[in-house]
């Protein structure tokens, strides 16, 4: 679990550089509330304390990374309590929760406080014609409003904007802005064998292919695949959220199916859904389907008839 925290540090540093005190405030609020909530609920349930497995710290950090910088602290606290108490401890603690607590917390906040959860600070888009446009929406938010109203793309996605998305000089939740920092953390986790490559690769590949098809089919209304890969919460979701072992399938084949499903749902919601960002919902929905995936992708028992029933 410590490795996951170390892998999250680069994204934390980037968020502090861009959003300053807001990022620190939210992260500390979430982590401390998660730890306190876990300790209190474990005591209330008369179980061993168990916060030394640092899973609450990770849930806190991941939840904070999914929050906009200007969110009031008390909302972050409410989200953390919901994530730890309702989504995890109520099922009996680590290992029993069917849904990823951090994501469920973020979705609960998104639906309960839609305005606060979609209020961003300023950022500029360096447009090629020299006049920087100042806006206060996230790239995906911009695309959603522009495409639905005028039907045209709000900005052209060129090298400069891509660099911005890579480095993190963009609007969005505090943890998801810099794709580079998240990728760095992801590589660290792969080296330390905390996660396997199956879910992130399957997830990012499906998003790229699906958005690629849409882009080729209708370039004026769709942004290129590499925009979709770098924008929004995809990197954070694919590397840290979807790979949560408790709520994702166990077998390698199951993980590929899980990643693919997340990818399809993400682009589906981004293209036609009501919300600009589909990553949280996609992963939660695939968490719900994980028990069925586990059941379907059981390995063939050694000695069972090939292609026949799973058992002898």
């Amino acid at each position, binding site marked *: 679990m410590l490795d996951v925290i170390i892998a999250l540090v680069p994204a934390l540093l980037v968020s502090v550089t861009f959003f300053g005190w807001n990022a620190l405030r939210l992260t500390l609020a979430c982590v401390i509330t998660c730890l306190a909530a876990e300790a209190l609920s474990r005591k209330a349930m008369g179980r061993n304390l168990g916060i030394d497995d640092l899973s609450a710290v990770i849930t806190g950090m991941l939840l904070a990374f999914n929050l906009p910088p200007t969110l009031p602290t008390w909302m972050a606290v409410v989200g953390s309590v919901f994530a730890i108490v309702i989504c995890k401890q109520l099922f009996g603690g680590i*290992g029993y929760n069917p849904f990823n607590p951090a994501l469920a917390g973020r979705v609960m906040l998104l639906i309960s406080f839609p305005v606060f959860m979609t209020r961003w600070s300023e950022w500029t888009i360096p447009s090629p014609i020299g006049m920087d446009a100042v806006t206060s929406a996230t790239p995906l938010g911009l695309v959603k409003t522009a495409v639905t109203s005028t039907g045209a793309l709000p900005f052209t996605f060129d090298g400069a904007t891509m660099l911005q998305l890579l480095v993190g000089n963009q609007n969005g939740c505090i943890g998801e802005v810099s794709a580079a920092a998240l990728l760095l953390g992801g590589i660290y986790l792969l080296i330390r064998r905390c996660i396997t490559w199956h879910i992130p690769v399957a997830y990012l590949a499906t998003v790229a292919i699906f958005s690629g098809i849409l882009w080729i089919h209708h370039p004026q209304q769709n942004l290129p695949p590499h925009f979709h890969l770098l924008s929004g919460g995809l990197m954070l979701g694919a590397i840290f959220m979807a790979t949560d072992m408790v709520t994702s399938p166990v*077998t390698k084949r199951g993980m590929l199916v899980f990643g693919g499903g997340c990818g399809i749902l993400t682009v589906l919601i981004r293209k036609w859904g009501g919300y600009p960002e589909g990553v949280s919902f996609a992963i939660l929905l695939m968490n719900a389907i994980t028990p069925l995936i*586990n059941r379907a992708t*059981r*390995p063939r*028992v*050694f*000695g069972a008839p090939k292609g026949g029933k799973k*058992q*002898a």
Partner: protein
Amino acid sequence: MGFIKAKYNAPGGVHPAYHKDLAAEQPIVEMPLPASLVVSMSQHLGKPATPTVKKGDSVLRGQVIGESAGFISAAVHAPTSGTVKLVAPVATAAGPQATAITIEPDGEDTWVEGISPCPNWQALGKKEIVEKIAAAGITGMGGAGFPTHVKVSPPPETEIDTLILNGAECEPYLTADYRLMVEKAAEIWQGALIIAKALDAKTIYVAIEDNKPQAIAAMQEALPAEAGDAQVVELKTEYPQGAEKQQIFAVTGREVPAGGLPLNVGIVVENVGTTLAVWDAVVNGRPLTERVTTVTGGPVAKPGNVLARLGTTTADMVEFCGGTSGAVAKIISGGPMMGFAQADMSGPTTKTTSGLLLLGPESVHAYESMPCISCGRCVGVCPMNLMPNELSQFLEAEDYETAEEYNVMDCIECGCCAFECPAHRPLVQHMRRGKTQVMINRRNQ
């Protein structure tokens, strides 16, 4: 000539620290007769033998003191000459009680008469070979203890074409089979030819892991001409290469059907120790009264491979190896992966005790098991491709029907999943508990 690398490898498998260096280079040493021998009637798979002697009788070495009690059972012979001191239940290595005969040796070690060596065994027919094996009370010495005369006389309609000698000895710490192969290669080959004749098997393989080069060399060199196209097969060192189904797949690529037996795919697997005992029984006409056991582990002063009479207590064996230096936290009969922990050193060795392992406090940990977080490592290492995480959660919730649906009965209890589990869950005990309950439910139905 006579050497190939294994083309296949069974799924899963783990690589525990082997610690074979402790006793690997120690040649086999014969142990003098101890003060008393506790010969258990349940030294094999199947019904325990029924004692034929009572307190006060005097017996000779090789005399039958326990008759085979049924088809799947085996005779038990007096390991030496002496007087019967006690006939009482004693805990076996696995735990349940079984009657055991305590014999006080008289020191002469005189053989019972009627021992009929038969140097040119080739003249014997299949039936005589099986009878001699049954009379000698030979059982599998790798750990299971399946009576060999039953294994060597499969039902007539099955057609056996291959005999595999199991020299993998994949269990860490144990080196008994390794020393046997290095020192008694020729006799083992003779034993193999005898068994092959009894089975009408055409090809013979000797499966040895590649971390035992001297054993491979010794067996290859001692390969007799009349063994035809017999091969020594070098297996990748991986636990559990020694498991029957996994070894058959690694050597021949055939998959034993789940819930089936090796004879369903025309193969019989025999441990190298058992093969040597078959040679001793048929050629020298001597019943099984002694075996080589590795006495090893940190606290053992001089670890080694001891040729000891059956029924020697663990305490005497450890005493012969220089006693213990340092505290002993765990006593295991067998290896660390599949062996049985013992409460004390009073347990006797039997035909299936391949090792006695003493572990110091620094290598014994009592863990508090955590809930399963479905990390899937156990699924990756299970040689039977089962799902130990799901099974252990079903069994923890005492849901035995679903556990049966998820093939808990195919678990070979090799211990890979429990070895790999970061949450220290007692997976093998869950499986064992599940299998017992499923069998009880099937009987009650």
